[in-house]
């Protein structure tokens, strides 16, 4: 009996400890976990809001993209995924990682127009961000906008325009 109680208390302690540590080190993980449980309970709009907040807090998980897609599939209020970008912009976010995540998310889902919009916005915030410029060039190329893509590549390679 004592052993079982010890085990239960130990697990509770570990859970509490990790939650507290995450809250201190990475508060976004709490939001991410909250979003996941909201998704499990089919509260899609709330889950989406939480996922956006988690992205804005710089959370990067292998499953985030998957869950976000799953959530978007159920969010009938969101006619177009670019609303995600609009929400992020309206939050006055300056977290480049969030925009990169979103840009990649759009590109992975073949929404190149939104991806280009995201990277362009990111470049207005951080014009020296070479990763964003490279991704923008790739996305423009995939849209068939070769001339624009070439200009971006030239900027990246410091070649004369």
């Amino acid at each position, binding site marked *: 009996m004592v052993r079982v109680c010890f085990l239960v208390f130990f697990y509770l302690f570990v859970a509490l400890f990790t939650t507290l540590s995450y809250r201190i080190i990475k508060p976004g993980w709490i939001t991410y976990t909250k979003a996941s449980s909201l998704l499990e309970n089919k509260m899609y709009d709330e889950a989406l809001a939480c996922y956006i907040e988690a992205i804005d807090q710089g959370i990067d*998980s*292998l499953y985030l993209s998957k869950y976000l897609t799953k959530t978007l599939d159920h969010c009938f209020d969101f006619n177009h995924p670019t609303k995600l970008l609009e929400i992020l912009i309206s939050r006055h976010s300056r977290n480049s990682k969030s925009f990169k995540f979103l840009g990649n998310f759009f590109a992975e889902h073949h929404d190149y127009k939104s991806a280009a919009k995201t990277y362009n916005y990111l470049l207005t915030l951080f014009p020296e961000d070479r990763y964003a410029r490279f991704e923008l*060039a790739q996305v423009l*190329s995939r849209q068939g906008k070769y001339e624009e893509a070439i200009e971006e*590549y030239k900027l990246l*390679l410091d070649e004369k325009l």
Partner: protein
Amino acid sequence: MKNPKIWITLSLLFTLIQAEENNFRCKNRFALPSIWEIRLQYARTLTFALKIDEAEVQYKKLIANKKDFIQAQIDLFNLYLEIKKDKEALALLKTIPITKLDSLSVKLAAELASEKHQFAEAGEFYEIYLRRHPLDLNARLNLATIYCFLGDPDKAEKEYLFLLKKRPNDIQLRRNYGFFLIKQRKYQQAVKELKQTL
């Protein structure tokens, strides 16, 4: 649960490994690719934009500066094939490990080498291609012809027999085989084969 300590340690270890795996996979998620990768994409975009000369310059720059960058060589080879610069394509082919080429490029290389009467290379390319696509009978027929040119009748006959097994009603193929047998002075067998084509 006889020994809870082991279970606790194992579960903690499992959690740690999972977290590390996630961390490892996400670490370089937004890392900028190398300057070579950027130049390669640039060259590809120039190709798509039909700025062939500029694309060629970029590929050459890449190859000159990074000799082990096989992908650039493969891309340039494919570009040469597309714009019919056969001589350059064949010259470049000598530096590319052929096994790195995709099947279509290997087949095109074989056809090109055959066209330019470089039968030894053509044979080698067809062999590699047929290892990947053993049922491409047209390529196998070409290989049989190449073996004839290379003076290797045994291998050629083996290919012909394989083809005839797959396409027993192909008159043209049997006729070719008949003529091949005549060249090998196997007249009786040739007559037997050619009679079937009448």
